[in-house]
């Protein structure tokens, strides 16, 4: 699953640590999400969507062939 988290974060001019603080997760989790190494739980995805005021599917792009 791809995402535009890094782009959104940079648009808001906030650091990974600040985003991690707001989401109550570790900075490493934000880094892994941005690199696409880790897919978030639905709760974290909703929290991120609300934080950036965007729909989930706009932030996280599901690619079917990855899971086939």
């Amino acid at each position, binding site marked *: 699953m791809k995402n535009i988290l890094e782009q959104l974060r940079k648009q808001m001019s906030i650091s990974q640590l600040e985003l*991690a603080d707001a989401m*109550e*997760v*570790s900075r*490493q*989790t934000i880094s*892994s999400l941005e690199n696409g190494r*880790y897919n*978030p*739980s639905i*709760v*974290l995805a909703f929290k991120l969507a609300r934080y950036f005021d965007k729909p989930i599917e706009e932030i996280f792009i599901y690619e079917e062939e990855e899971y086939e």
Partner: protein
Amino acid sequence: MNNEKFLEKKMRFAKGYIVFGFLLIVINLALSYWAIKIKDFWFSMIGIWGVIFIAMGIVRYFLYKNQSILKLYRVHENDERSEMLRGKAGYLTFVFSSIALAICSVIFVSFNLIWPSIVVLAILFVQFIVFYMLMWHYSRKL
């Protein structure tokens, strides 16, 4: 889990440490009062562990009172990626310790040490039982 609930949970742990430490010291004093014969080594061990538990409880109590440290603990404990990593690492550790215990029991048998081998096999068996009991317990929750 909000900050207050998390603090409450952590404080219960800290108080538990202190109570357990006092319990060990009381056991130590009771054993000496009734002059129950155990080796001096165990007297000092029980007392020392009592003091260690009390000290750990007090240190934790004051650490959790600090809001920034409490937040670090909360993030580390509730971070979903850390939980997943702990789960994966924990399962691999379980597999590793099972294999290590099985190898130990074979070594003991080959040296004709029957009782140590039985103890190791019993630990291995208990470990599997605990693992499946916890799996059952958490499967009801999730």
